[in-house]
C-alpha cells in the first residue's frame, strides 16, 4: 500500500486578483520505507508540494491520501494530530524555538501529543545522544553551531516516532562536513524503516535517495530510480 498517494493535486495562490498556479496536476505515490528526493529549481513548487505533504496547506484541487486517510476532509484538530504523530519536519533554517534549551526543543512535539510517554526526558536525551549532542542538552539554539542546531531539529523530528520525515533543504545552511553528517543520519533512518522525503536543489544530495523526482513549473518533469552504484558513489 502507498503511504503517500497524491492524485491530480493542484495548488494556486490568489494575490490581489491574480491567481498563480504553483502545482499543476501532480500525481505522486510513495511507499513506506522509500527514500525520495524532490529536486527542482527555486520557484518550481517544491516547498508547496512539501507543505501539502506535511498537511501544512490544503490542495486547491485533487486528492491527497496519507496513510489511508484523505487529508482534504480533516478538520484542524485531526490535521494537527496527523502532523503531530505521522510527520517529522526538518527545516533548512532549523526553526528551533529561540531561548529554549535543546532538550526542551526536542520535546516540543510531545507538548501537543495525545498520549505522551512518561519518560519524555529520557527519550529526548537518548535521541540527542544518538545525534551526538549528549553534551549540549541545556544549550539554547544561540549557543549551538549550525550543524548542532540541525542535529537538534532531527532529534525533534524523531521524538514522536513518525513514519515520515519531511526534510526541506536540510543541508542548505550547513558546511559540507556537517552536510555529510546530516545525510549519514538520514541513511541510518532509512535502515530503521522510516520514509524520508528530501527536498533539495543539490543534485549530489539528491543522489542519496533511491528515487529522484524532478519538478519544473509545478509539474513532475521526471521520476527516476537511482541505481545502487550511483547511490553508493555518493555516500
Amino acid at each position, binding site marked *: 500500500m502507498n503511504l503517500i498517494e497524491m492524485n491530480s493535486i493542484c495548488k494556486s495562490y490568489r494575490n490581489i486578483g491574480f491567481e498563480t498556479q504553483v502545482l499543476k496536476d501532480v500525481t505522486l505515490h510513495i511507499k513506506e520505507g522509500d527514500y525520495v528526493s524532490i529536486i527542482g529549481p527555486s520557484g518550481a513548487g517544491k516547498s508547496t508540494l512539501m*507543505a501539502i505533504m506535511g498537511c501544512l496547506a490544503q490542495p486547491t484541487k485533487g486528492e491527497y491520501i496519507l496513510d489511508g486517510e484523505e487529508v482534504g476532509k480533516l478538520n484542524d484538530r485531526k490535521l*494537527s494530530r496527523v*502532523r*503531530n504523530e505521522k510527520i517529522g519536519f526538518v527545516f533548512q533554517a532549523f526553526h*528551533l524555538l529561540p531561548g*529554549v534549551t535543546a532538550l526542551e526543543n526536542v520535546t*516540543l512535539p510531545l*507538548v501537543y501529543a495525545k498520549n505522551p510517554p512518561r519518560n519524555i526526558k529520557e527519550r529526548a536525551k537518548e535521541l540527542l545522544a544518538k545525534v551526538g549532542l549528549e553534551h549540549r542538552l541545556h544549550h539554547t539554539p544561540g549557543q549551538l553551531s549550525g550543524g548542532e542546531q540541525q542535529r537538534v531539529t532531527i532529534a525533534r523530528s524523531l521524538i514522536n516516532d513518525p513514519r515520515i520525515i519531511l526534510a526541506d533543504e536540510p543541508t542548505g545552511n550547513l558546511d559540507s562536513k556537517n552536510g555529510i553528517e546530516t545525510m549519514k543520519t538520514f541513511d541510518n533512518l532509512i535502515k530503521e524503516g522510516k520514509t524520508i522525503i528530501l527536498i533539495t536543489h543539490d543534485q549530489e544530495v539528491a543522489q542519496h535517495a533511491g528515487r529522484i523526482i524532478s519538478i519544473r513549473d509545478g509539474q513532475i518533469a521526471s521520476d527516476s530510480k537511482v541505481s545502487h552504484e550511483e547511490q553508493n558513489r555518493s555516500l
Partner: protein
Amino acid sequence: MRIFKNLGQALRGLRLNRGNTILMTLGVMIGIASLTVIVAIGDGIKIKVLSRIANMGFGPESFSVIAGAGRMFFSRSKNTTSMTLEDAEDLLALPTVRLVVPRQRTRTQIINKKEFTGTRVYGVTPDWQLARGWKMADGDFLSDNDLDRRKRVIVLGATPARKLFKGKDAVGKMVRVQNNFYQVIGLLEEKGMTESGYDPDDRALIPLTTSMSRLTHQTYLHSIKVVALDSSQVPETMEAVREILRRNHNLSVLADDDFRFVTPEGIMQWVTESEQALNRMLILISTVSLLVGGIVIMNILLVSIRERVREIGIRRCFGARRSDITFQFLFESVLVSLLGGLMGVGLGLTISFGLKRFDVLPTHITVEPFILSFVFCSLIGLIFGIHPARKAAFLSPEESIRS
C-alpha cells in the same frame, strides 16, 4: 491536561519575551494603581466629611440658622445684618424650642505676652455649653452675669490654651484679643484632633455682648443655634423659625430667605449627593485607565505575535491545534494582566499610604481594590487577549514557517 501544557508554554513565552511582558505589565499596573489610589482617596474623603459632621456638635434635635442666603457650607455673606438678638428671643418663645444660642464668630489672634495664636473666637451665651454638652477641664464657663455686664472674660479651648500657656495654669491669667485684655475663667475639656485633621479644640469663647461691643463692633448675629425639645419636632420647629424670621426681617412674599438652615439631615443629604457624584467620577476614571491598560496589552500582543509568527508556525508544524495557540496567547495576556494588577495594587497602596503620611490627601485603604483589580484584570486579559490570540491561531502554518 492539554490546557495546562498551554499554560506552561504561555509562562515560557512570557519569560522569553521579557521586554514585551514588562511593557504589558506596566500598562495594566498604571491603570490598577490609579484605580487603587482613587478608591483610597474616595473612601478617605468620605470618612473625613463624616467625621467633620460628627464634630459640628449636631445632635439629632438641633439645627443652625445662619445669616445670609446661600449654600450650606459656603461662608456667610459679610453684609447680612438682619439677624438680631430679638430674633433669638422670639425663637426661644416657640413652644417646641428648648435652647437658643445666638453667636458671633471672628477669626483673630489671642496674645499672651510673647506667645500668640490664631483661632476662632465665638461670642456666645451661657446656654452654649448646654447646647453642646461640652464639659470644663478647669475653671467655669461664661455666666449670665458675664453676659449682662459685658465682662472681658474668655474660655479657651485646649489648643489655644496649650499654645499660649505651655501647660502652665491658665485660669485667672490675662490674654489680649485685639485691643482688649480678657481674663481666662475656664478651659474646655479636650476632644482631640479627628482622624481627618479637623481640630474642634481650636476655639475660644467670650460673652456675646462683649463680642458685639469690643470685638466685632456689630449688633447683629452671625448665626443662631436652635435645640428643639425632641428630634421629631425639628421639621415643624424649622418651619416656625422661618416664619418668625421672615416676619421680623420684613421679607415680602416674593423675596428669598435672607438666612439658611444647616441641619443634620441637610448635611447627610449633601454628603450623599457629593458621594454619588464622587463615585460616578471614580468609576469613569477607573474605566478609562483600565481601558487604556487593556488596549496597551492588545497592541503589544499584536506586535508580539508579528514577532513570533515563526514560533507559532513551528508549534503548528509539530501538532499544535488552533485552540492550543489561542489558549497559549490568552493565558499570556491573562497572566500578564494579573501580574500587572498585583503590582498595580502594590504601587497604589504605596502611593495612598504616602498621600496620607505626608498629609496631601486623606486616604483610606480597604480590601476592595484587591478584589476589584483581580476581577478587572482577568476580564481585561480575556477581552483584550482574545483578538490577538485568534489572530495568531488563524495564521497559515505554511506561510508562518516561511517568514
